[in-house]
């Protein structure tokens, strides 16, 4: 449904994309994962006809983004990185405006606006001006505006960056609902967790190139999955704890801080707690640590995110 081959783009002598390849099969969700400045927004801009790539080729449903931009625009919905809705208009007026611009009749647009306001939990705020909205409400409205007339392909650029956890979950649910309706989705994110929650496949990009591709599990396996971190109240207990947990996996670290791979997540953690507390050893702290984008990055590239040395 979405295909790109060798997309390149420079701004002056700043090379933003060095040849991006990606493909999103119809009805699936692709997560484009990368740190700030990796080229996510530039990739989306090339695919949505906002920027002309310097080299390479991309198509939406077979329509070339450079040669048939008008056809591509007819098929896509775009939610940019910064919620772009009209601040002075109400939520309903925004949706009606975009609906009318997308060729719905006045009546269809009004009907669709009501439907979307309900779906996106904005019905109570529908008569308020957008400038009074919270960040989460704005994002939801932005998303609603992108699907007023159902697009075949939806592009979401960092849809939850800057949102509180509750709004984030809410937005995730909405994205899942759109996928369930068969919309093909390409979303970018800086969070491995988000890509993991939403995407069927993930493409990791760094400095304008694709450095890894696969499912969330593939990527996590390359990093080693979830860890259980435990901190002992007394470092002298280290040896005893090592023996106690030896059969659970390869225990790393030394002194009071130990790390254990926790493929079963919470189950591993509670097993550790039970065994340790049965012996009367005191834990200062215990937690699960999931691999973050930083860990994935480090594993894939050997350098940290945002680390400019190459």
């Amino acid at each position: 449904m979405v295909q790109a081959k060798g997309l390149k783009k420079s701004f002056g002598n700043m090379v933003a994309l060095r040849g991006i390849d990606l493909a999103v099969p119809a009805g699936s969700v692709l997560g484009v994962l990368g740190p700030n400045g990796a080229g996510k927004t530039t990739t989306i801009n090339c695919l949505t006809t906002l920027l002309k790539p310097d080299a390479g080729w991309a198509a939406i449903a077979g329509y070339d983004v450079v040669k048939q931009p008008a056809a591509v625009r007819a098929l896509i919905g775009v939610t940019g990185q910064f919620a772009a809705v009209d601040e002075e208009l109400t939520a309903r007026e925004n949706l009606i405006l975009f609906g009318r611009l997308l060729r719905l009749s006045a009546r269809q647009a009004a009907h669709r606006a009501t439907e979307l306001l309900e779906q996106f939990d904005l019905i109570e705020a529908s008569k308020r001006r957008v400038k009074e909205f919270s960040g989460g409400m704005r994002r939801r409205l932005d998303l609603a505006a992108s699907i007023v007339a159902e697009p075949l392909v939806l592009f979401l650029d960092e849809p939850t960056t800057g949102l509180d956890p509750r709004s984030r979950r809410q937005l995730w649910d909405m994205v899942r609902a759109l996928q369930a309706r068969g919309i093909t989705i390409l979303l970018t994110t800086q969070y491995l967790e988000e890509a993991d929650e939403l995407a069927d496949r993930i493409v990791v990009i760094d400095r304008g190139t694709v450095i890894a591709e696969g499912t969330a599990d593939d990527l996590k396996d390359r990093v080693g999955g979830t860890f259980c971190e435990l901190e002992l109240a007394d470092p002298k207990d280290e040896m005893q704890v090592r023996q106690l947990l030896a059969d659970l996996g390869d225990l790393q670290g030394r002194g009071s801080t130990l790390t254990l791979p926790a493929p079963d997540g919470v189950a591993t953690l509670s097993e550790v707690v039970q065994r340790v507390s049965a012996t009367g050893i005191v834990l200062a702290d215990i937690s699960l640590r999931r691999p973050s984008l930083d860990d994935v990055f480090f594993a894939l590239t050997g350098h940290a995110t945002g680390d400019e040395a190459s």
Partner: protein
Amino acid sequence: MNSADLHSKAQSLVKLRHESGINRAISDSLLIAWRNLIRLSRTPAVIVSVLLFPILFFSGFLLAFERLMSFQGIDYVQYLVPIITLQAMFFTAMGSAVTLAKDIKTGMLQRCRAMPISRAAVLGGLILAYLVRAIAATIILLTFAHLYGFRFQTSFIAILCYLVLTLLFTTTAVAGYAVFALVLRQPDLVNSLLIVPYAPLLLLSTGFSPVENFPQWLQPIVQVQPVSHTAAALRALVNGTELLVPLFWSLVWLIGLLIAFSLIAVRLYQRVS
């Protein structure tokens, strides 16, 4: 959906949501104008200032120069109204530049660019909305001037022509200021430089004072520029003096600039990011 279904769905969407053609341009411009008018109606401070400023300038210039001009044999009320009308149109166009710069900043323009809407609609919608404001400003100003004794010495047709020429001037000014906003982009920058095209064009014109009152070396420039010709044509429509020459040059300037500004604005719009 299987791939054949998808393909035909894509085809029908591409057909339905085409963005070229004059009909598309008009209907999309009307929608964007509707949106701009809603915005305008919700910023009362702007409305008041735009409608009041021309009246303040009119009264001010009259108080300062009416006696002076009467020594030159000029009925200053009759002389002044056309240039104050054009000044009000400049204010209107400046308002449109600020709106456009805000839309660039919020990403609204970016969103429009990724939608299948006419490439001319953002400019068209801006012009249409600000024409509505221009009509309101002109009517209020003329009504106020009437109280000061301002009268059309001509026909009803001339009054209509006065309005039409004023609106053509506004259209060109909005297109020009759209280019201005699309080049500068930052709302603060746009705001602080609004006066740059306006002040020289307005002050170095024959609108406030006849060309003889300018220094010799400046006179050719003052005489040839569009605001002078348009003000002269409007004065002719008010007072029934020689119309054809100033009207001709005014139309040449305004239509020529309008075409140039529109083409540039639509091109710049397609590159906004």
